[in-house]
């Protein structure tokens, strides 16, 4: 079942004539990992950033089509492009979390970082906060490393630890979907391996979309892969089909490294 259905979606940045994304139709399957790949400038990040409408921080964008998000409580699909009110935006972003290219630890303690989203969501109870922070940190395989220094500044962690902290922070609010925007491109190979393992682990609880420029990464961890080129979705299929048996010539050229 798809937790998110992108239907005939087009996106235009402010002050630009041509849409950066054209007529994209794509599902994000529940408890699966969907990878978005393609050469830089193909629109994969733009698409990902539309899924929680983080674009709207900078006004003037034009959306067309639909992006429907399954509400797990009611079982209904809501078009997130219709959202206008502040509180609906807040709810959307609690349902659809995001991890960025560079680790983004907030300038506060490790504990407060993970607790931040929970506090925003209105959880004040100290012991509940502690429980959920611990669960999130364990879920992100960070608990062992930091359990004795939760009150230290998060800025003192290594890059890989910081990125896992950001994942813990996003997981703590129990989102339905997690968006990863090239989460390992700023990390060393060992940290990258740890993050990849973690992402695979996470799909038990959450549906995942990941943008990556690293095809090996996409083939290692994803269940479905979408190949994009110049704002078009060229091909979407199960990952093994995309990599072993692509239908489109462009996909094959990209996969085999003939351009990109």
């Amino acid at each position: 079942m798809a937790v998110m259905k992108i239907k005939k979606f087009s996106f235009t940045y402010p002050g630009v004539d041509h849409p950066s994304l054209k007529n994209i139709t794509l599902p994000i399957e529940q408890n699966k990992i969907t990878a978005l790949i393609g050469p830089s400038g193909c629109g994969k990040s733009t698409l990902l950033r539309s899924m929680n409408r983080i674009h709207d921080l900078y006004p003037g964008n034009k959306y067309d089509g639909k992006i429907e998000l399954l509400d797990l409580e009611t079982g209904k699909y809501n078009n997130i492009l219709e959202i206008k009110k502040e509180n609906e935006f807040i709810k959307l972003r609690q349902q659809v979390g995001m991890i960025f290219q560079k680790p983004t630890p907030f300038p506060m303690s490790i504990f407060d970082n993970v607790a931040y989203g929970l506090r925003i969501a209105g959880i004040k109870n100290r012991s509940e906060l502690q429980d959920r922070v611990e669960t999130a940190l364990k879920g992100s395989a960070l608990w062992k490393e930091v359990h004795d220094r939760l009150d230290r500044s998060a800025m003192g962690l290594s890059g890989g630890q910081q990125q896992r902290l950001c994942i813990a922070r996003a997981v703590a609010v129990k989102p339905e979907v997690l968006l990863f925007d090239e989460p390992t491109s700023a990390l060393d190979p060992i940290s990258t391996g740890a993050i990849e393992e973690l992402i695979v682990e996470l799909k038990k609880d959450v549906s995942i979309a990941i943008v990556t420029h690293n095809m090996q990464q996409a083939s290692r961890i994803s269940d479905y892969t979408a190949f994009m080129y110049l704002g078009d979705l060229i091909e979407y299929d199960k990952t093994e089909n995309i990599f072993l048996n692509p239908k489109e010539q462009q996909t094959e050229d990209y996969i085999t490294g003939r351009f990109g």
Partner: protein
Amino acid sequence: MRLFINKIFLALSVFSALIGLAFLGWILITLFIKGLGSFHFNLFLNDLIEGGLRNLIIGQFILAGLASLIGIPIGMTAGIYIQEYGRGKYAALIRDLSDIMMSAPSIVIGAFVYAIIVVPTGGTSGYAGAIALAIMMIPVVINTTDNMLSLVPRELREAGIALGASKYRVILDIVIKAAKVGIMTGILLAFARIIGETAPLLFTSETSNYFSLNLSESFPSLTVSIYDLANEPEESSRDLAWAASFILTVMVLIINLTGRFITRNKK
């Protein structure tokens, strides 16, 4: 020949740096000798009317402190507007105007406050002085806030928004915190600047020989009194002015160095 010109040039440059430092040394040594010569611990215990400086030092701090209470929140929120909310021409205009205001002649700001506050309220007052200093301070705080917030990576804001926080919470909880050290340094430097100001106070707060906490009348000011005392013919008044200048400079330099020290330590 080329090497010779090079040597001459380098020597000139080093020489001018030495001149610059010589002036600094000269001023500081003068201040030390004259200031320490007239310095006495009793200056902190007596008011000007009894030949001390207590009321003036306290008064100057109250004026600058009140100015900070007005100027810091206004300057910070305005800086936040420019960097976080404002888009397009209006924010750019405010940034430019604030830049200009930062270098506006302080005596003109004094005249402005004189016209809008001293004249209508019927006399000089501590409030008028504090407002004049606040007007001096606001653009400096705006400038620091604006610059420091611009150094906070965009992703940090997006990460906050992506967690479901509303924009103002992201700004207050995350962005300001990330820029805290820089902003604090800027504010300390701004405070050091206004506490040494004389011109905006001359006809707004004036000064007073007596201890006063009543901000609605002429208010004791260290700098204005230095100006008055230094122009007195008696040697004793001038000595007192030197002692006051010494104390003022030490205060300003300590605040200034504290600001720099914070930034350096945090880096």
